[in-house]
Every structure is written in structure tokens, then in C-alpha cells.
């Protein structure tokens, strides 16, 4: 799997996710500066976490208009896999590559802690190494992760099986939603399930020396699917 990680001014988890990609695929990803108009030929484009443009104006709003995003959209339309984590998810919604938006957390505070995620489907490039309904312990670290979309959109996402992860209790049941997200949604796919946006950080749960390795399955899934 060849991957490219886009760096925006203010990205800060690019090295975290590069390490997780390399651990699962055996290949170092290339880094692409946001001002580039082209992305080298790759199997996966990653928009990492951080505070692109300081989160000024609105999270992801300015980054969505970076020159590189035209190339990201073109590639996504061609079916290249795109993963946006945290700020990357916010950028994907701002760029119109994923539906919905991410508002300030219901508690109005930044929260950094492990959360439980329920895998909603194992039928995707990103989740094929997980079981459906498997519960993962993965960290979140954000101030604006409260997922919203209108009711019809949410019904459609659920109806078409496009919810990737939901916040849940340790036993998989509902009732532990850290940020107020609609229907406990933590991550969603686009229609073709080639674009995934998620708020929690699987890249920070991919190394046994620093906590859980529950997030590693996502990178293993990608490495298996995009060999």
C-alpha cells in the first residue's frame, strides 16, 4: 500500500499516523504539502489530525480550500481511498466529500480520553479486519467532534450502511456519547465507502508500548485491501 499524508499549516498528528501506516503496511507514506496541486500516485490519501489554519474561522473550513484539495477530490472521484481523522474528518465535511458537519462538543470542552467504539460494519476497505459489533478502545482528542446532519441524511447514512463507528459503552451498548454526536456517530463513509472520516484516533491506539492496539486493525485492513 502506497499512502500520502497531506500536511496543512497546523497539522499535528501527521507523524503519528505515518507511524501507524508504516507499521501495518511496511512502507513509509509520502508527505504532501497543502500548497501542492498534485498528489503522487498512491492507493490511500490521509488527512491527519491537528488544527489546520489554527481552526480559525471554522475547523477545516480554510483547509478545504487548499490547492491540494482539488487533487484530493479528483482522486476520490476516481475511487482512491481517502481517510480523514479528527481535523481531517472536519476538512472532508467542509470539502463536501462527506455529509454532515462537526460542531463543538456538547460539554463545550476539549476532551482527550479513550472512548469505546462499536464497529458497525466489517464490509469496507477500512474495517475488514474487524468483526461487526466489535468494541474498540481508542483515544479521542478534540473540541469539535459533535457530528450533525439532518434527519433524512442520518436515515440515509444508516439505511445505506454508511456509519462506520459509533460511540458506545464498554459492553457495546449505547449510552456513552462523549461529545453529543447525532446517533452516537463517530465515523462515516461516503456512498462508495472509499472515503472514511472519523473523530477518534486509531493511530494513537496502534502501538503496544503506548496503550491499546485496538486501532491497528484499521491500518491492517487498509494494508490488506490495498496491497
Amino acid at each position, binding site marked *: 500500500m502506497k499512502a500520502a499524508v497531506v500536511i496543512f*499549516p497546523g497539522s*499535528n498528528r501527521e507523524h503519528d499516523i505515518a507511524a501507524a501506516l508504516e507499521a501495518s503496511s511496511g512502507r513509509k507514506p509520502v508527505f504532501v504539502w497543502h500548497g501542492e496541486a498534485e498528489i503522487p500516485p498512491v492507493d490511500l490519501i490521509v488527512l491527519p489530525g491537528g488544527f489546520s489554519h*489554527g481552526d480559525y474561522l471554522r475547523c477545516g473550513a480554510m483547509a478545504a480550500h487548499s490547492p491540494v484539495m482539488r487533487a484530493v477530490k479528483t482522486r476520490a472521484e476516481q475511487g482512491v481511498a481517502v481517510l480523514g481523522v479528527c481535523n481531517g474528518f472536519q476538512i472532508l465535511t467542509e470539502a463536501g466529500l462527506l455529509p454532515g458537519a462537526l460542531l463543538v462538543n456538547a460539554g463545550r470542552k*476539549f476532551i482527550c*480520553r479513550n472512548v469505546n467504539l462499536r464497529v458497525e460494519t466489517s464490509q469496507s476497505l477500512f474495517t475488514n479486519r474487524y468483526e461487526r459489533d466489535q468494541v474498540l478502545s481508542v483515544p479521542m482528542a478534540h473540541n469539535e467532534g459533535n457530528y450533525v446532519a439532518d434527519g433524512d441524511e442520518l436515515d440515509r447514512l444508516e439505511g445505506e450502511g454508511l456509519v462506520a463507528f459509533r460511540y458506545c459503552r464498554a459492553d457495546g451498548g449505547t449510552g456513552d456519547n462523549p461529545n453529543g454526536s447525532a446517533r452516537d456517530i463517530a465515523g462515516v463513509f461516503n456512498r462508495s465507502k472509499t472515503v472514511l472520516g472519523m473523530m477518534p484516533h486509531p493511530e*494513537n491506539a496502534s502501538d503496544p508500548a*503506548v496503550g491499546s492496539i485496538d486501532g491497528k486493525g484499521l491500518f491492517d485492513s487498509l494494508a490488506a485491501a490495498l496491497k
Partner: protein
Amino acid sequence: MAREVRVDQALAAEYGLKPDEYARILTLLGRTPNQAELGMFSAMWSEHCSYKSSRKWLRRLPTQAPWVVQGPGENAGAIDIGGGLAAVFKMESHNHPSFIEPYQGAATGVGGILRDVFTMGARPIANLNALRFGAPDHPKTKHLVGGVVAGIGGYGNCMGIPTVAGECTFHPAYNGNILVNAMTVGLARIDRIFRSAAAGIGNPVVYVGSKTGRDGIHGATMASAEFGEGSEEKRPTVQVGDPFTEKLLLEACLELMASDAIVAIQDMGAAGLTSSSCEMAGKGGVGIELDLDRVPCRETAMTAYEIMLSESQERMLMVLKAGREDAARRVFEKWELDFAVIGRITDSGKVVCRKDGKVAVDLPVGPLADEAPLYDRPTKPTPKAKPLGKLPAPRSVGDALKTLLACPDLASKRWIWEQYDHLVMGNTVQRPGGDAAVVRLPGSRKALALTTDCTPRYCQAEPEAGGAQAVAECWRNLTAVGARPLAITDCLNFGNPERPEIMGQFAGCIEGMRAACLALDFPVVSGNVSLYNETSGRGVLPTPQIGGVGVLDDLTFGVGLALRQPDLALILVGETKGHLGQSLYLREVLGREDGPPPPVDLAAERRNGDTVRALIRAGMVEACHDLSDGGLLVALAEMAMAGGQGARIALPKGASPHAFLFGEDQARYLIATSDPVGTLSVLRAKDVSAQALGESGGRTLTVEGHCTISIAELRALHESTLPALMAAPGR
């Protein structure tokens, strides 16, 4: 054109200069300075920049060891951690601005200490802090806690530097002056450390980062005076932080530092362009010439005085090798930052600034940078604390434990550290809430252990014991995770040094720190002094905050405090005499704050700690916790809550329950082991006092004959205090 401002003794006083200091300036110059020149003197000679009251005492602190790469005097200290790498670190206060405007004050405190570290060529890998607030029920406390925590998080989170450890306590002595101390630890190659001494006559002086505005003018002077009525009016002296720009500045500086274009670099912190230019020239023994018309300004018609005294954030001053300007400019323009050649290095020994084509400042560097007044202020020793006398036994050990675990000082600080991104960079092995954070060095099995510590009530009661205890507890916390403690940074927060009692506290704490640093081979490599933490004549508790760094050579042999398995033997290491003077039990359960603090036996500290570390390295320890605030039973409860395993212990025959369970004797650890026989024999062979108390297991904490409490109940109490405080209406 700016109007001429009349310079006289009255203006000097307004700028914080004493009459004799102003007279000295007139003598040194042989003329009356202009407004900009006077402003520069007042900033450089302020307590904050010149350490004029503390320097005499700071010289007492041990600063050397074979592993010290850079001691005090640079932007940050540095130690050799093996493999060609240095840990670069420093702690700094942002007390005064944080009280006036908590979010921006705390945020820019973090920004300032980060710059101090990356100025040295180090990539920051961890932030820590130490916070002291007033009484929980004081009308300002909730607002200050909320603002400070959000400010620290807002800056560090955006920068992508994990905030991994800290401490936070409350006491009415901080009602009018909170303490916000921030520490940054970075990593640099030892042979690529950058320093601040300017060199090379004719070399260009370059300004990079944000533009200069009218914010923070005279911040250093504000931080060098006590508060009176109306300190809110000082809000314009607080700077506004922009962590996004600082993130760009960090990346741009590190990118340029990978080349050999930089001769010297210094951040523009307190006293902005004045201190950076004067200190760089002073250290290099050269002169400096600045064209202030070339300084990127955010506002129009700024005067020389304003430009030289502005404390706008996210700015750096560099001396480049001649001819490297264009290559450097390209790096900064890529990161969309201002870059301006604003002057050059001269051999004049003077700082000369031009504005509108005219000489606006012409001062000798020496007097500004190195000839600030040095005061030998009178000291009055703190009277010996009266002994405590006999205390009544508590009606219920269980109730006392619950009271302690729920009191604001011991309550869980989760509400705080969950607002800090403590995981970014992917190397946080031990998260907040333990004795020390453990942060892995990228791509290795090695890690740094990091902690901040001080027990101000001990320092108040007996400064010398308190100073020693702060260093010893820091050393112990690093030891408790299995690390080799290497060096400290300090942040010395005290009241008004013009009062002999305050200088007595200062001198006493320094002497105690000195003794502990020497006994534990634990030198001071950087630090900061914050005086005048005082409002209307009432000072804070003396708070010599210590930030410690240790190395864990192999993560495999690190331990935490969590009790995770049943049937482990619990062994108390160190001698327990049951010292209750100045203990939290005394304060929280009996409502008294008196008696002497626990004595610090540095030989026992060393012996006990070295032995515990050896046991951890030998793989004989499953969990380890330093005993400090609250004593043995609080430590055991913390271990149980962290790992979800209960425990049962029995008191030794004849032990007085409250003294044994809640005494705060020093040099002690509680360890859990599956090999009690082997562990005890190692301890005894090293002549370390130790006793088996019981074992882990179950869902309750039991002290035989006294109490049984469920871990769930303890957790609920421990976790609810801070959220309840912050949710309380009306404050």
C-alpha cells in the same frame, strides 16, 4: 510624529525604577535617557529580567554533573540522555498575567516556554504545569481554574505537544495571586544545540514570526510588582497568544536549524526586542544596530519605545551568517511568516536603534545586560514551628480517608487533564495521574520520566525542609516509575522580596534545595524566579516548584502505580514514624495547619530510592507509588482506584492508626510484588526499612479492624470533587 515624553524621576517611578536605580542610570549615561532608553533600562533592570534580588542566592544551587550539557543562563537547560541526544527543558511562571486574564495569561505562558525550548534547536515532546489557586469557594477561583486550564489546553493542543503531567492545589494564600508555572521538555542532538550569544561583526540580525503590536508593553515590569487594588486595570499589559503562528514558527525554525545558517537565536519573551537584542549582544560581547523602521508592525505609527517594549508573542530574533538571508527567507515565507533583516552585529559594544532615519536609542550594552543592580536584601529566618503535641485518634479511619480523597488537593484532576491533549505525538507511555509521566523517545525503547512537585505548606512552615522536600519528592516520583533521575528545572514563586520574612523564606528554600540536589546528584539546569506574588501585603505560600527529568533506559522495566492483579504483596518501604505536622490529615480532618513539616533524611531518600529503582529494574515490582500528601492509606487507595483491584492491609502491632495511615513521613514508597520474600531480603540487605502490610485483591479497600470501603465508592468521591466545583453555579 510621536510627541516627546518628558523623562524624569516621576516617569522612572512609573516604569518601576527606584530613585537610586534612576540615579545610577543618569551616572552611567552621563545624560538623561529618552523615553525609549528609559523603558529599556526599566525592563532589563526589572526583577523579572535581572534577578536582582535572587541572583545572590541562585548561585548557591548546584548546577553541575557530568551529564549536564547546558546549565542555567541560556534559554533552557540541557542534559545528555545518551545516544547523542539531549533533553532540553525549563519551567517558567506566568502568574501575574494569568490572574489578570486567565485564558491568555496561561496560554502565552505555554507559548513562551515552548519558544525557550525550540530556540535551543530542540523539538518539544512534552508539556507539564503546576497550578496553585485560591480557596475553592473564593469567588474568583472557578473563573480562574476554568480560564487557566482552557488556556493551557488551547495553546498546547493546537501546537501538537502533549501535556502529560502536572499538579494543582488550592489554598487561600493564593486568593489574590494564583501561580501558573509551565514546563516544556524537548529533544535535540547534542551537537546541534543552538545558543544565544551573538557573534560575527557585520552579520545580519533577523526578525521572524508575528508582527509587533502594542500588546504587552511593560509586561515584565508588571510582573515585578505586587498587586494592589485595581489590578484588573493591568489587562492591557497581558499579551494575546496565537498558537497557530507559533506552530508555524516552530516548524520553520527547526527547518532552518537543520542548515548551518544560524549563528545565534533567542526568543522575544519578556521585554521583547529589548531583552533579546541586549542579551544576545551582551553574551557575545558585541554591539548591535537595529533599524526599527524595518520591524514588521501590526499597527501604524508605533514609536521606538513601543516597538522596543512590546511583548507581542510568537517572535524570534536571529543572527544569521552573512549571505544566508535569502535561503532563510525562503523557509519562513513557505511557512507564511514575517521575515525581516532589521539590523547587524557591530563592534561598538552599544545597542543603537534608528527610527525614521534618526538615532532613537544609543545605549551601552554592558550596563543594560550585565550591570543591573544586585541586591543583598535583608533576610529574616522563619521561626521554628512549634511541635504538634498529641492528637486525638479519628472516630473513623474510613471517614477520614473519604474526606481526604475528596478534598480538592487530593481529588482526581481528570477534569483538568482531559482538556489537555496528552496523547498527540504517539509516545505517551504513562498518562497523567501517576507519579511521573513517561514519554518514549521516538523510535526507541528508551523514555523520559517527567514530573513537577512542591509542597508549599511545608515550605511555609520550615523553608529549608520544604525546599529539600520538593526536590526529594520530585526525585522519588521519577524513581517510582523506574527512571534514573537526572536533573531539575525550578520556578521559584515567592512574595515581595523587600520584606525580610519573604527573603528569609527564599533563602531557606534555596538552602534546602541545595542540600537535596547535592545529596541526590540532581543538579539545577534552568529556572525562573517569580517574586512579588503578593497582594496588598499578603504573599503566597513560598512555592519553589521543581520540574524533574529522568531516563528510563528500557520501557520493559517501567512500572506504574495501578494495582492490576490480585494476590500481590504490599510492601511499605521506608521508615514510618507517623509524622502528622503540616499533613493533609491535620488540615482536612482536624482543621489545623500547624506543626513542623516532616523531616527530610536525604541519606535515607537516596538509599531507599536507589534500592526501589534496582528492584524495579530487576523486574520484582508490579506497581509502585511514592508516599506523599495524605500518607500511606491515600497512596494505597490511589493504587487501588487506578487499577481496579482492592487491597487488605493490617496495622503493625501498637501502631497509632491515624499516624501510621495518614502520616507524611518522607523517603517512602508502597510497592506491590509477587515475590515478597525476595523483595524484603533485597531491601533488608541494603539496610532499607520495610514491612509487608497485606495484599491486593477484591473490590474493597480494607484496613483490618478499622474499615472496609468499596473501590467504586472511593472512585466516585475522588472523581466528583472537581467537576462539582466547576459546575457550581454563581461562581
